[in-house]
């Protein structure tokens, strides 16, 4: 299939803006162009972000006051489950695959992805998976209310919605694995002459390592949900104690996937930030080689820390100690990265356009999320805080302030290159500051709730938790509205934004800025640049 990319590019030589044989909707269904597919991924992820966001707002609406207000506890559990699944698999992961599709070929001087048709298929699996997750709400018994981790033995007791969810996870996993194979093959085989591995932009490096993580981790999740499916319908007892199985086994298998998954989300976010900070510091990235090695170290360590998610299941003390030390060890390469980003800014010629604001917001808040992660890595503390709102606050600092802030930074950074139009800088800054304030309003106070003992995944709570919950819920609605404002900023830029200059960010120096016009034509690098 590699010939597809090649012949496609040669066939349109000299017709840089030609969109291929179809127009309208068929263009998007049949497209094999990496830029089109990147756009599809990004819009899909935004739609799912809105769907998952509505569920988050339903959760926060219910938690605005103590007592059962709007939703019965079962539906509440369904919202928390689907919010997690949709945000992780439908919103954050596809967003960064969208960036990968747009940017990797342009950054390494390739004409397209290695397997252009496979790329199309990888994307078009996603809407069906998303639909299955949403449809599960309308099945008898509703969507599964087991939490996004899909823990046994609850999963065995759920209705048909659970089967739809399992099938959706299979599709999402298949899409991720195919996409990763494509990304690895593209990076290893299609780099321009002279683009050695250690000259690649850090975004490409982080995606190369992420794709390896996906190839290794996603089949483990697929195995876990397949075993759940056979336990439900085919008489096996992998996770059923009555038949000789073990529900805790599910947790081990799930988190063997689940912890690398955290870095599958975080590493591409690191990559985006590693492009943005040097551009707005007007300095090369500090410690490039150490960034590559730190990213690799994080990826390797991510496979030996899984049981820190399950200290309370009753594992031996030696096991707890091993996983505690291994987890704290991850702080070392992560600290190297944070140090390098700060050192890149040190004595730089800094300006604070919207992408840089989001990158610095990421740096500040992700570091806080990292520190609360360190707190939770310690067994004696985690046993107290396990399944409390402290954990909810921690992972939202990593997932939202980490991944989402970085995605916003990436959109503002590359939008001029993609569309040839500038966004409104004033509105962009408003978006950043409102997002920053409302994010902390939602999640900073949840640390207090967790420390005071409020458990997660409950629709009701004692009166003493009311004040912080009210603040958190008000913040959530503000945060949701602010993201509609982001949609307005992007649409305004696309429709009527000022024409972008050739090099809107003079500090940006990867190939898409130095070797391609703005906006980029439909086909790029039909002849690979020689970088030797």
């Amino acid at each position, binding site marked *: 299939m*590699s010939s597809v990319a090649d012949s496609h590019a040669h066939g349109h030589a000299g017709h840089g803006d030609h969109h291929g044989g179809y127009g309208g909707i068929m263009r998007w269904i049949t497209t094999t162009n990496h830029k089109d597919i990147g756009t599809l991924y990004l819009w899909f992820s935004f739609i799912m972000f809105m769907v998952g966001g509505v569920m988050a707002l339903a959760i926060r609406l219910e938690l605005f006051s103590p007592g059962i207000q709007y939703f019965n506890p079962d539906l509440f559990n369904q919202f928390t489950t689907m919010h997690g699944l949709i945000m992780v698999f439908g919103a954050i992961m596809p967003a960064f695959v969208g960036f990968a599709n747009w940017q990797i070929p342009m950054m390494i001087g390739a004409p397209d992805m290695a397997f252009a048709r496979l790329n199309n298929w990888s994307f078009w699996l996603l809407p069906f998976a998303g639909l299955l997750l949403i449809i599960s709400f309308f099945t008898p018994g509703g969507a599964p209310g087991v939490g996004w981790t899909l823990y046994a033995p609850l999963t065995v007791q759920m209705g048909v919605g659970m089967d739809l969810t399992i099938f959706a996870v299979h599709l999402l996993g298949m899409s991720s694995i195919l996409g990763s*194979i494509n990304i690895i*093959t593209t990076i290893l*085989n299609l780099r321009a002459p002279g683009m050695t591995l250690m000259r690649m932009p850090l975004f490409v490096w982080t995606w190369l390592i992420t794709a390896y993580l996906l190839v*290794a981790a996603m089949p*483990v999740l697929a195995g876990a949900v397949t*075993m759940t499916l056979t336990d439900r319908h085919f008489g096996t007892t992998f996770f059923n104690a009555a038949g000789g199985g073990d529900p805790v086994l599910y947790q081990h298998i799930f988190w063997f996937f689940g912890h690398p998954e955290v870095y599958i989300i975080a590493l591409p976010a690191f990559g985006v930030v590693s492009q943005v900070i040097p551009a707005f510091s007007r300095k090369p990235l500090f410690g490039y080689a150490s960034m590559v090695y730190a990213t690799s170290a994080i990826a390797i360590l991510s496979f030996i820390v899984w049981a820190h998610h399950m200290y309370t299941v009753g594992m031996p003390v030696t096991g707890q100690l091993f996983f505690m030390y291994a987890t704290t060890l991850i702080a070392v390469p992560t600290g190297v990265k944070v140090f390098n980003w700060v050192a890149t800014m040190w004595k730089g010629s800094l300006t604070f356009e919207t992408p840089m604001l989001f990158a610095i917001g990421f740096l500040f808040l992700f570091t806080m999320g990292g520190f609360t992660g360190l707190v939770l890595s310690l067994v004696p503390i985690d046993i107290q805080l396990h399944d409390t709102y402290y954990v909810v606050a921690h992972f939202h600092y990593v997932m939202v302030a980490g991944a989402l802030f970085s995605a916003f930074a990436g959109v503002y950074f590359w939008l001029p290159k993609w569309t040839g139009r500038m966004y409104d800088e004033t509105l962009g800054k408003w978006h950043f500051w409102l997002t920053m304030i409302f994010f902390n309003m939602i999640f900073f106070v949840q640390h207090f709730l967790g420390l005071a003992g409020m458990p997660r995944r409950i629709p009701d709570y004692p009166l003493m938790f009311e004040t912080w919950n009210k603040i958190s819920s008000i913040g959530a609605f503000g945060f949701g509205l602010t993201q509609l404002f982001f949609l307005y900023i992007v649409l305004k830029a696309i429709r009527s934004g000022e024409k972008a200059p050739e090099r809107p960010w003079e500090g940006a120096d990867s190939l898409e800025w130095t070797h391609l016009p703005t906006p980029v034509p439909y086909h790029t690098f039909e002849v690979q640049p020689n970088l030797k």
Partner: protein
Amino acid sequence: MSNNLKTALVLASIALTTFVGIIAKYWILNG
């Protein structure tokens, strides 16, 4: 066989082996 196809087949076989292996392992352990 092109380099791209070789790379893809190696990666796909790793993914498939992991998927089948993890189920097979616990299938055998469960007896």
